[in-house]
């Protein structure tokens, strides 16, 4: 399945429980190439958990996932080779420099086509981290660490692999310029036939593309009295 272009991801009846408590049930969506879904909802409603569950990082209580034009039933784990996941944590090693971290991530993602280090430098430059190239990641600010993720996404748009982006609060610590860059990257990704699901509290505007909102709190199970 690797290297395939994004066609369609359909989810039906997704339910998730944490610590014996049902977070949501009956979530369904269909994602096509060029589309962006913004996952919204109050803290603790399961946005991060849903993103993780889509990749098999945490288990779904119920639901089906179907991939591609043939709507092949898949497990979350099967989506991993097609996905770029950005979680809550830094996802970078504090002891390594920004450049080293990005080079490692690119090698793992398969976005360093031909192992070109120049591409890594270019992506750092695009993310506004050129001056922080040789700074250890632990000395970067929260926002700069998120820009490191942007650099990783920039590499992915160039390499044209991993068409499904699953981003968890990618702009939480970004300044206005950083958010604009995120919008530009998302726009480029969607225009190139990719798709994305972004959990966010903040408005995110992909350049030249529309987005729709999936409000998770609407799927919260009704509270049982007593």
């Amino acid at each position, binding site marked *: 399945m690797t290297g395939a272009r994004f066609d369609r991801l359909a989810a039906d009846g997704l339910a998730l429980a944490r610590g014996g408590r049902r977070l949501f049930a009956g979530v369904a969506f269909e994602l096509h190439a060029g589309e962006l879904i913004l996952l919204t909802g109050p803290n603790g409603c399961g946005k991060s958990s849903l993103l993780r569950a889509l990749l098999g990082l945490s288990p779904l209580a119920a639901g089906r996932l179907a991939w591609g034009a043939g709507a092949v039933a898949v497990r979350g784990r099967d989506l991993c080779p097609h996905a770029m996941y950005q979680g809550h944590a830094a996802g970078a090693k504090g002891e390594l420099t920004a450049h080293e971290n990005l080079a490692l991530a690119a090698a*793992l993602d398969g976005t360093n086509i031909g192992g070109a280090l120049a591409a890594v430098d270019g992506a750092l430059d695009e993310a506004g981290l050129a001056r922080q190239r040789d700074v250890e990641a632990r000395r970067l600010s929260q926002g700069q660490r998120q820009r490191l993720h942007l650099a990783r996404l920039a590499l992915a748009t160039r390499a044209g692999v991993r068409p499904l982006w699953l981003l968890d609060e990618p702009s939480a610590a970004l300044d206005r310029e950083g958010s604009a860059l995120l919008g530009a990257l998302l726009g480029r990704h969607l225009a190139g036939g990719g798709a994305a699901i972004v959990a966010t509290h903040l408005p995110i505007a992909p350049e030249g593309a529309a987005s729709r909102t999936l409000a998770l709190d609407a799927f919260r199970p009704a509270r049982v009295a007593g």
Partner: protein
Amino acid sequence: MSELGTLGWALARDLKLALRRPGDGLNVLGFFVLSCSMFPLAVGPQREWLARIGPGVIWVAALLAVMLALPRLFEHDHADGTLDAMVASGRSLPLLVAGKLVAAWLVTGLPLIVVSPLLALAFSLPDGMLPVLLAALLLGTPVLLGIGAVAAALTLGVKAGPTLVALLCLPLYVPVLVFGAGAVEAGAAGLSPYPHLALLAAGMLAVALAAPPLAAQALRISVE
């Protein structure tokens, strides 16, 4: 990235990290040397006693030193989210774990073997027994690390993790200890050490095949 590339990625990454943070490896080595040197102070400097207990002491110290390194094997990666990234990358997790284990052995296991000739000298090990000790450690330390990796992966994120790792590992380490120390004992008694070494080698092969997938499965459960 090929299969070998996946393993190499994790190996190169962890070696680079170990170089940036040399304290971790040096702590383990320091613990090994110091705990060995406690024994002559405790039991007295009689040469024949020391020669008698030497192999056993070196083995027990090596075992405890390896165990000291286990909690850190996945802890940092878990805390900073790079473990999530590895699982989510869709690359073979057993191969990534295997790469990490090879790196961990180079950083913690190999240095123990490099300094053990000095300790053998301190314990006046019988002549000709040094190669047997080195061979036994060379075959045995990967087994210790492999078993420990599964335990460390299982207890990842648990508060009492390090204690649990010790409780899980020590019973499983008994055969390694018996055959490892036994190899030198047998050699010193004029018997062939090869049956012991062959059993250790068999154990190493079994662990090399079984530990990465088992630890990978345990990691998948731990990141949930």
